């Protein structure tokens, strides 16, 4: 974990309203794992004040570059979009925990929606590299929300759109339900995206009795576990867990879904 000045090496639009940014990574710093995130200080002016958290969407140990996918939403992401190549930003990373790797014989099912694409994509690529055959399911409202993803070697990518304008017509979870689950005796589910999607993934995992991890979101201030601001409700002896420290990845059975 380190707070460092990073150079923007590249950034481009990958879907309407979504951008991918590639930044330099200090050689001395540990590589981020899929599921981990960074926080960005977007401006020296005091507004927007707080650093903004983004999941890593990729990492290249050889080139020492990391990438993130972000949606244009408010002041911070709008500012980020104006940053030119070679300009620098202040980054604090790697933060939080990471996705658990599947067992050797498990089929990894990965579900991404909206801003959840980054961490899931990173996980898919890592799993693919490590000999797994991840099935990456990407959901969006229409075709225009679906980024063009580089193909995986062993894995596969499945697009779903609510209006059927691309790929499967329906949600990512609808797609998963439509699979032939008999040929998926030992699957493991990973998801990141809107709360409703995560909850549906959790329910599916319960139904199919498979392990399931979700990457959660909450407003953050410190990002390092110091302020208790990013708490979410969990089941267990402690009522709350910190998304930035105990998370962002949680066993979906630990979350108190509401």
């Amino acid at each position, binding site marked *: 974990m380190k707070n460092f000045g990073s150079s923007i090496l590249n950034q481009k639009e990958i879907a309407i309203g979504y951008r991918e940014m590639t930044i330099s990574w200090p050689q001395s710093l540990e590589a981020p794992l899929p599921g981990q995130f960074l926080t960005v200080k977007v401006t020296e002016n*005091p507004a927007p004040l707080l650093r903004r958290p983004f999941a890593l969407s990729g990492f290249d140990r050889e080139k020492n570059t990391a990438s993130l996918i972000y949606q244009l939403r408010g002041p911070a992401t709008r500012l980020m979009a104006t940053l030119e190549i070679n300009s620098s930003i202040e980054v604090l990373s790697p933060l939080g925990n990471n996705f658990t790797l599947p067992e050797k014989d498990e089929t990894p099912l990965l579900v991404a929606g909206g801003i959840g694409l980054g961490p899931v994509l990173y996980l898919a690529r890592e799993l693919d590299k490590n000999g797994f055959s991840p099935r990456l399911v990407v959901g969006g409202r229409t075709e225009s929300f679906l980024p063009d993803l580089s193909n995986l070697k062993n894995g596969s990518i499945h697009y779903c759109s609510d209006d059927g304008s691309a790929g499967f017509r329906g949600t990512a979870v609808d797609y998963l339900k439509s699979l032939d689950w008999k040929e998926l005796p030992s699957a493991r589910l990973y998801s990141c995206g809107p709360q409703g999607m995560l909850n549906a993934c959790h329910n599916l995992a319960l139904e199919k009795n498979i392990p399931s991890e979700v990457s959660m979101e909450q*407003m953050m*201030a410190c990002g*390092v576990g110091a302020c208790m601001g990013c708490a979410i409700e969990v089941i267990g002896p402690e009522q709350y867990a910190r998304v930035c420290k105990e998370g962002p990845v949680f066993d979906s059975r630990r979350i108190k879904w509401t």
Partner: protein
Amino acid sequence: MDLTVKIRNKTLPNPVGVASGTFGYGEEYAQLTDLSALGALYTKALTVEPRPGNALPRLVETPAGMINSIGLANVGVERFLTEKIPYLETLTCPVILNVAGSTEEEYASVISRVDSQNAIWAYEVNISCPNVKHGGMAFGTDPVQVERLTKTLRKLTDKAIIMKLTPNVTDIALIAQAAEAGGADAISCINTVMGMVVDINSRKPAIPAISGGLSGPAIRPVGVAAVWRVSRVVTIPVIGLGGILTWEDAVQYLLAGADAIQIGTGNFVTPDASVKVLNGIISYMKEAGFQKIEDFHGHF
């Protein structure tokens, strides 16, 4: 150059501390800033019983600031002694325990139960908490209650007692005088300013507690004004905080009458703000020819 700040019978190594609730127990920031360089580390508020904290979400950003509704989320005295003290014992910087409660007895109980710990350098008493026995108005809004609470706590320990004032009062100078009269060794000001954000999409308050505590650069002018007013009327040291991001902000506080400062929300923006602020203060002192912290005072 002498950077020390005398409080009661001990000295802080330098005037730059990190504020309660924004720095955990230090462990979380150990990789990001040099903890041994801190003038003081003020811990998250400790109450007798563990408290889970407030409902979610607990944070919302505001223009140049943020509102928090963490509540007094903490592990309680018992687990504090077993889980937190061992780490705090490894720190070389002064650790100041922030103490909170709903009644005078609760504050007293916290101090009685932890006072033998050498890892605790002093107490900072958070009097922004509602007094359940007095209709829920915060202790810190009534000079009579403040003086009595300070007197009670003063008798329980030989460590310094720092009373941390809320800015949500008509006359903060009056409260500071009450604290001094009760035997306080120093004053911290300010705690957060009451604020509220409404989510215009859900048509609900952004945080379930409705209003919360505003902190960050937005409130810096409020904190500087409070330090100015308080430092005019008390003889004990004043520790200034509220919205400090940079060394320039800290110097404003020192010139306004503070003997030391704390960085709260600033840590979230710049994890090693404390080191940067201290270095900036040192450079400023060199350029100004200041030998000691008191040289900041009396310029107007």
